[in-house]
Structure formats: structure tokens, C-alpha cells
């Protein structure tokens, strides 16, 4: 059993650990942009999400384009603003469908389609679309985590009934990645367990029985089994990759165990766990355990709360009056600031790991967004969106793009194209677009 009290040195205290394994220059080519064998440094994609939006007057920069200003609610990303793009003024169009509060906006951003009927996800979410293309050669196709401690806070879905679950605690995230099955790419010793081969053959045998199991099923159940067998195939592939000696990675080191914290939605506890998770996730990316991730800081109907307060962030958005002088909801704005501070922490953690000629963040594209703009009214226009990192130089950064009411799917389409997804049109109904955002494409 692992010692749950061991402290993750350098993670609890501040920047992520980046040392531990001596690195030889021969790992990289002469200009530091690729591995010595010519393979490009991996590019990663992830989402980072928070609930209940922001206060437009305190979040949206006044200046459009490069060199945008930092309003109060964006202070958290100020240090890295040159690596962050801000998207304001893009809209989710419902085509007459009901605005289902905190569901519609996020589904529109993540799937390009607004929910119909009882469904939430009529189409797969963007992380899966991208993961299907670029996440197939790592141990994990994707890693999903929620700082709120609730596995149900996960917004990665193939459909309304095929929704992933988040890993709810730093310890569980650590064990999943750096537990017994982790193979350190920089270790001189490579001894794959003989059981890996056996496990692969077990999965293969189950797959071979597919026809026997599915031949009596109707179409809907066949589709469910298709997902099951896809999962079997992915697990099989994951095991196969573990049978191959991993290439050395300079930036990879195995972190120490995180200190166990009670999960919860009190802002300080959530922030603490988020910081630990950010560090573990960063190490997972640096060690090429996955190229795709989803990090939930707070759920859409944000359960965040101040210690000792009877009200949640979500409840506050509905109940707090506008301050007479300031003309905004003071407490609601405070919550948004906490969310943005934590997004800053996440980006800084990735940026603290050198990789190639830059940092891990430079080789990543983090897509951050919320579910509404003004939470009290569940506004679908101007839902806050941002990106962090430049996807290995594929994306220009430090830019504020103003949507002027154009569809949010322009952002999703652009990100997919930057991640080499072969798509030229994305979205449903009036959300369909083939127009990417050229000003951010390098």
C-alpha cells in the first residue's frame, strides 16, 4: 500500500518538480525542437473548465487583438498572458430549442450542437474528436480529473449515455498514472511484465467473441456494445504500448505521492487539490502517458463555496444583488477571480516544465471555457473561452479575439484543425461553420 501521507515535495509548496533524472543532450536534436531520432516533440490538447461564467465588465479585455489589457477577473492569467488567447462575444445559437440553463452553453461549445429533448450530448465532445486523431499512441487515450472530488463532474462524452467519469482525488490520479504499471521512460531498465502479454491475449479473446454476443441485439444495444469493444481495443492497445520500450523523455520525472486531502467544494480545498492534480497531470503529459486531458475545476452549477458560507457560487449568482456602487455582483465576481487564479496556476504548472526549446505549455493547447456568460440569466452570448499554450507553435498567442455574435463553433473548429483533425465544417443547425479563426493560426 502506498504511503498516503508522503508529501509531494515541490508540488504542495509551489512549482512542479522537474528534476530527478539526469538528461543527456543527445535526447534532442540540435535546435531542441524534436527528439534526436527526428520524431517531433508531442503536442497535447486538454480542456479546463469552470462553472457559472464571469462578469463581462470585469473579464472582457477592452483592447482586441494582440497586447490585450488585463481586467480584474483575468488577473490570474496575467503572468502568462502572452501565452493565452481570450475569446469574447461568441454565441451559442439554440435554433429555438430550450435554453437548459447550465447545460446548453457548454454542450454547444464542446459538441457544436445544442441539446435536444432530454439529451445533453447529441454529438461527441471536442476532446474526444481530437483524441481519436492524436491520442492513440499513448498509454492513456485521455485522462479526466475533477478538483471538486466528484467523479460525476466530467464533460467528456460520446453521447448522453456514454459520459466518462472524472478521477476525483489527487491520490487516485497519481495511482492511475504513476502506480505499479508506470514505466519510467528514462529508466535504464526495461522489463515488461510477462503478464502484460497474457492480459493482451485475454482482451483479444473477448474481442473475438464479439459476434456471438452481439448477433441477437437490436441496433441501440449493438451501438452500446460497439463502445464496449472500442474500449477493449483501447485497453489492448494500451497494454501493447507497455510492451515496447518507451523513448527517453528529458522532461519526464515521476512525482512523489500527493498528500491526501479531503475532497470538497470549499474554495481553498478545491484549489489545493487542483494544484496537486495540475502537477500530476503535467508530469503525465511530460512522461507521454497521455496527450489528451480534461480538467474540471468546478462544475457547471458551481458548487464552490466559501468556508462558513451558506451559499454556493451557483446560488450566489442567483441571489446576490448587484452592488449599488459597483454595479456588479461582488461575491460572484470574487468566485470568478478564484476560478481564473486557478487557471493561471494550471498554466504555470505546465509552463514550469522545460521541454525542447520551450516549455510543456508551449507544446500544449489548453482550451478553457465556462457554460454561461452572466450566470443569473444563463446568457449564451459571450460565454468566456480561452486557450493557453501554442500547440507546439501552431497557434499564435497573446491575442484577444472578439466574436461579435458569431458562433462559438468557430473556436472549436479552429482548435480541431490546429490539432490536425481532418474537418472543414463543424456544428449543427445554425451553429454549423466552416470559418476558422485565422488570426490565431500560425
Amino acid at each position, binding site marked *: 500500500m502506498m504511503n498516503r501521507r508522503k508529501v509531494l515535495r515541490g508540488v504542495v509548496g509551489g512549482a512542479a518538480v522537474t528534476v530527478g533524472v539526469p538528461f543527456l543532450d543527445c535526447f534532442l536534436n540540435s535546435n531542441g525542437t524534436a527528439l534526436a531520432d527526428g520524431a517531433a516533440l508531442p503536442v497535447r490538447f486538454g480542456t479546463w473548465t469552470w462553472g457559472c461564467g464571469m462578469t463581462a465588465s470585469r473579464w472582457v479585455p477592452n483592447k482586441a487583438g494582440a497586447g490585450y489589457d488585463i481586467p480584474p477577473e483575468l488577473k490570474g492569467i496575467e503572468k502568462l498572458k502572452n501565452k493565452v488567447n481570450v475569446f469574447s462575444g461568441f454565441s451559442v445559437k439554440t435554433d429555438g430549442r430550450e*435554453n*437548459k440553463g447550465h447545460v446548453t452553453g457548454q454542450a454547444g461549445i464542446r459538441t457544436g450542437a445544442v441539446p435536444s429533448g432530454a439529451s445533453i450530448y447529441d454529438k461527441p465532445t471536442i476532446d474526444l474528436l481530437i483524441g481519436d486523431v492524436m491520442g492513440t499512441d499513448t498509454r492513456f*487515450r*485521455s485522462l479526466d480529473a475533477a478538483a471538486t*472530488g466528484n*467523479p*460525476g463532474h466530467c464533460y467528456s462524452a*460520446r453521447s448522453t*449515455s*456514454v*459520459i*466518462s*467519469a472524472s478521477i476525483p482525488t489527487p491520490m*487516485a490520479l497519481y495511482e492511475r498514472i504513476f502506480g505499479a504499471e508506470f514505466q519510467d521512460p528514462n529508466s535504464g531498465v526495461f522489463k515488461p511484465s*510477462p*503478464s502484460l*502479454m*497474457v*492480459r493482451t*491475449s*485475454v*482482451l483479444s*479473446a*473477448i474481442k473475438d*467473441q464479439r459476434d*456471438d*454476443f452481439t448477433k*441477437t*441485439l*437490436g441496433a*441501440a*444495444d449493438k451501438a*452500446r*456494445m460497439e*463502445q*464496449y469493444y472500442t*474500449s477493449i481495443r*483501447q*485497453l489492448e492497445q*494500451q497494454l501493447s504500448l507497455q510492451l515496447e520500450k518507451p523513448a527517453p523523455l528529458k522532461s519526464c520525472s515521476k512525482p512523489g505521492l500527493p498528500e491526501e486531502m479531503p475532497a*470538497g*467544494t*470549499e474554495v481553498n480545498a478545491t484549489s489545493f487539490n487542483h494544484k496537486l492534480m495540475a502537477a500530476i497531470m503535467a508530469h503525465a503529459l511530460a512522461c507521454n502517458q497521455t496527450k489528451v486531458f480534461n480538467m474540471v475545476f468546478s462544475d457547471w452549477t458551481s*458548487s464552490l*463555496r466559501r*468556508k*462558513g*458560507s*451558506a*451559499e*454556493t457560487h451557483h*446560488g450566489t449568482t*442567483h*441571489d*446576490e*444583488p*448587484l452592488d449599488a456602487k459597483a454595479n456588479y455582483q461582488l461575491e460572484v465576481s470574487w468566485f470568478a477571480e478564484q476560478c481564473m487564479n486557478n487557471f493561471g496556476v494550471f498554466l504555470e504548472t505546465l509552463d514550469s516544465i522545460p521541454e525542447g526549446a520551450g516549455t510543456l505549455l508551449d507544446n500544449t493547447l489548453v482550451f478553457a471555457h465556462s457554460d454561461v456568460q452572466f450566470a*443569473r*440569466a*444563463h446568457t449564451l452570448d459571450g460565454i468566456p473561452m480561452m486557450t493557453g499554450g501554442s500547440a507546439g507553435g501552431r497557434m499564435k498567442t497573446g491575442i484577444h479575439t472578439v466574436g461579435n455574435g458569431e458562433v462559438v463553433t468557430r473556436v472549436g473548429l479552429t482548435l480541431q484543425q490546429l490539432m490536425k483533425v481532418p474537418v472543414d465544417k463543424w456544428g449543427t443547425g445554425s451553429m454549423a461553420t466552416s470559418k476558422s479563426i485565422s488570426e490565431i493560426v500560425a
Partner: protein
Amino acid sequence: MGLMATNKNAIRKSFLVAATISVALLAGCDSPAPTREGAPATMRRLTQEQYKNIIADVFGPDINIAGRMDPDLRKDGLLQIGATEATFTPGNLEQYDALARGIATEVLAEKRRASFMPCTPASATAVDEACAKEVITEAGRLLFRRPLTAKEAELYVGLATAATEKVGDFYKGLEFGLASLMVSPNFLFQKDMVEADPSVKGAMRLDAYSKASRLSFFLWNSAPDDMLLAAAENGDLNSSEGLDKQAQRMIKSPRLKNGVRGFFADFLQFTLFESLAKDPVIYPKFSQSVSDDAKEQTLRTVTEFLVTDGGDYRDLFTSHKTYLTRALGVVYQVPVPASTDSEWLPYEFPKDDMRGGLLTQLSFTALYAHPGRSSPTLRGKAIREVMLCQAVPIPPVNVDFTSFEADSHEGSPVKTARERLAKHSTDPACAGCHKFVDPMGLALENFDGLGVVRMKENGADIDASGELDGVKFNSPAGLAAAMRNSPRTSACIVKKLFAYGQGANPGKSDEEYLKYLQTKFEQDKYSVPQLMRRIVTSEAFYRVSPSEAPAQANASREPVSTKENKS
């Protein structure tokens, strides 16, 4: 074989307990249930609880199931309906794979294997195909809820022997064989197989093994045992006498309590406990132990009341009898002289105590409240949706809060939830729903956001008056009595129980059948075990609608002899 011994012991014990319900149930011969068209065949993913129960039943209750499973899917208020749509994401399957390997390792650990294995291999370091086959086919029959086909037996035994050759250890090799059974869809999904019903032209029904599974998951929330599988195999289950005999045996079994627990945990939406949180400053008495015990308190109260005591379901809303631990005693403010933290003691609140019935237990008052305050709206909504099977529309997204907000912040003259909610009822967009749900929730305002009794809120007296469908009351006890006496309360449990069993909401064509069940429920003095018996002994429960039933019994199965309709 150990797992057989476990089952036989359980069966023997089963005849010694539950005497209070057996007499009534044995005398249950009367008019047959109306027929029904049936619902579509389903393929349900095992729920977490079902998975755990099966492992305990097949391999022993002390097997540690170490690891996480993703949350079950809830649809139309029930996990059992969500299970018909649930599948496996890669992340979740990876966890089930790890669970299966962990369980197999534990089952075949040196200290335990002798009690489980029906044979001893000739060598611990070499292949013994005969012994591997014996283990795999016996365990496989219980895990797959039917005998393995010859092809399947060959496959899983082959995996075990190949693994033994690879790792040079018979038991390690067998672990892989066992684990592979537990990753197979034949284990993880409960798939209905159907056949033509020879007694009704053109009608379809579940085949005998699927019938055994439906019966067993409904009554025990677990897989069929050896005797039930034997009844399916020899055709007994297709006769009404055989079905009655099995139903009575199963209802007398201690495992019935698992079934009743399974239903009520699903019905009462206790998955909400997984994310229950309270602010430690506002509710310092709340802890994870309190949360765990609150869930167990209600499930224990329900099963003891309904199964052991043969109680009237409606009285669960008014009964002052319950079970407490030390941790709960602190919140309920009663001494619990338990010798350990985990000991449960029966307790009866005084007749004049405002705490009586399900709605006054923490599993309701804390679950349906905010982390830092009570919520008459959440409580009233849960009563309507969960316990009375009524639909409450989702709130409008564009409410103008300007008329309420001045009353919501600190320093406001408005002290109580009642005063605050009165404002909501002035907005036509909100009034309809709030009037529908708030009056019941307001009657529970004497319980704070955790469930501690209070007479005042922010210094103001609490007015606990309310109303349910025209019945007025002014206390939690009044609400409890109104709930007990509402015909919707008993109608709802009938509908939910049936939906839980068949994995789908009843349709229009089921109205006559539901009406029959409701009438019988009343005649049976609202006994839930009796209601369960009525359901499982009626052929209607196994009827599959022809329009959705293309799946004839799996041709790859071993042929099974049947004794058709003896009655």
C-alpha cells in the same frame, strides 16, 4: 467446492429465517394477474451494487473489491433504467479490468484457494487442464448466469492454461482465466434472451435463464444461485408451480434484504450520498461517518420494517422506529449506548417527537438541502418527484431576481425561508412550481440543512405549516401523515418497483396490470415483499414485446430441456 458450500449454507439458513413473512406468502394463491404486452428486451449493465453482491455471493463476502467504478447512469429517476443505456468508456473498462484481476488474485490466494477450488492441480507449476476446466465452468456458470457453452469453456480454459505456461504457475494462470470471465460482456451485461411463448400465439417471453436473472436481480439484487439456475436448466422455471416454488424460496432467503435495499437505494436516489457535502463551520456535526451512517440508517430501517417486521409501506412515513449509531446520536441529539462506533442499536423516538418517518431522517433532510442551508424547494421537489412519481418542470432560465435579491443578503429583514420563498410565488414564471413543491418542504423547516431540530431560523420562529394536495398540516408529523395517507404514495412505489424490475417505465398498455398490482398491494396490507412476490410470479413480468424482440435465444447456447407450462 467452496462457492457451492456458501450458496448451500445460505439456502439452509434461509429456511430458518423470515418466518414472519413466509406464512403470508405461502398463502398467496388467488386470481391470476392480467396479461400484458410486455416491454422491449433490455441489456443492462450491472450496477456497482449488483457487481459487489455477485462477487460476495460467488466468491465470499470477505473478498475485497479494491478500486473505483465510474458512477452508474440514472434515467427517469432509476439506475435500473439508466443501466439499459449504460456502456463502458475506456477509462471505466480499465477499472473493471483491474478489479477483476484483483478479485481473482484474492480468490486464488494461498490462504483461500483450498476453500474455493473443487480440485487440486497435479502440480502447482504446470498445466492441469482438467482442474482448470472444473473451476472455470463452475465459476463461469454463476458469473454468466447460465452454463458456459462448449466453445466458451474451451476459450477460457485455454486462456488459463496458456497463462500457466507463460508464467509457470497454475494458480496465477487460473487467475487470468477467472479474471477474463469478469471482463466478459456476458458477465458485465445482463442481456435478455427471448423465445416464443408457447402458451400465447405470437407472444414472446424471456428464456429460462434470462427469467432466472430477472427474478434474481429483482429479489436479491444479485445473480441467480445454483438452485435457481438448476430450475432454469431443467425447465421448472417455465411452469407456474416451479416459478412459485423458486419465488417463495427466494423471498424467504436472507438475500431478500439485499434486494429490498437495492430497490430503495435506487428509488431514493442514494447515489447522491457520493457527493454529499456540508460546510463544516455551519454544520460541525457533519462528517463522512454521519453521511455513511445516514444512508445505512434508512436502508436498515426500511429493510427491517418491511422484511423482518412485515410492515405496511405507508407506515414508513410515520414510524418512529429506527436504528442509530453513536455518530447519528450526536446529530439526532439522543444517547446511543453502543459499545463501538460501528454498532447499530434499535431506537424509537417518543410519540410526541417531531422526528418520525423517512422524511425526518438525515437521508432526506441532509440530502435535499444546500451545503450551508436548508431548502424547502429541494425537499418538496424530491417528495413530488421521488416519492409521489410526479414531474416537476425545470426552472425557467431567465427569472428576474431583482424583486427577491434585496431579501437574500446579509442584514436583510427577511429571516426565514418561508418569507424568502413567498417572494418567488409572486412571480408568475416561478409561482406555479413553487406552489407545487414548497408547501411540503416548508413543513420540514424545523430541520436545518443537515437535519438538526430547530425551532427558530435567524432568530425568527419557524412556521411549519404546509399542504399536500389539499390536505393541510402545521408540523413535520402532519406532513408525514398526509404522505402516509395519500393514494399517490402507494401508487408510486408500485410503479417504481415495476419499472425497476423490468428496466423501463410502464407504458400505456400496462395500466390495467398496474391497477391490478395496486389493488393487490392494498389487499396485502401494503406489504412490499408481497408486492414483489406478486410481480415475480406473474408471467407478465417476463413478457417481451414482440415488436422489439428480434433476439431469439442464443443459438450458441447448450440446448436446454424445458417443461412447458405445467399449469
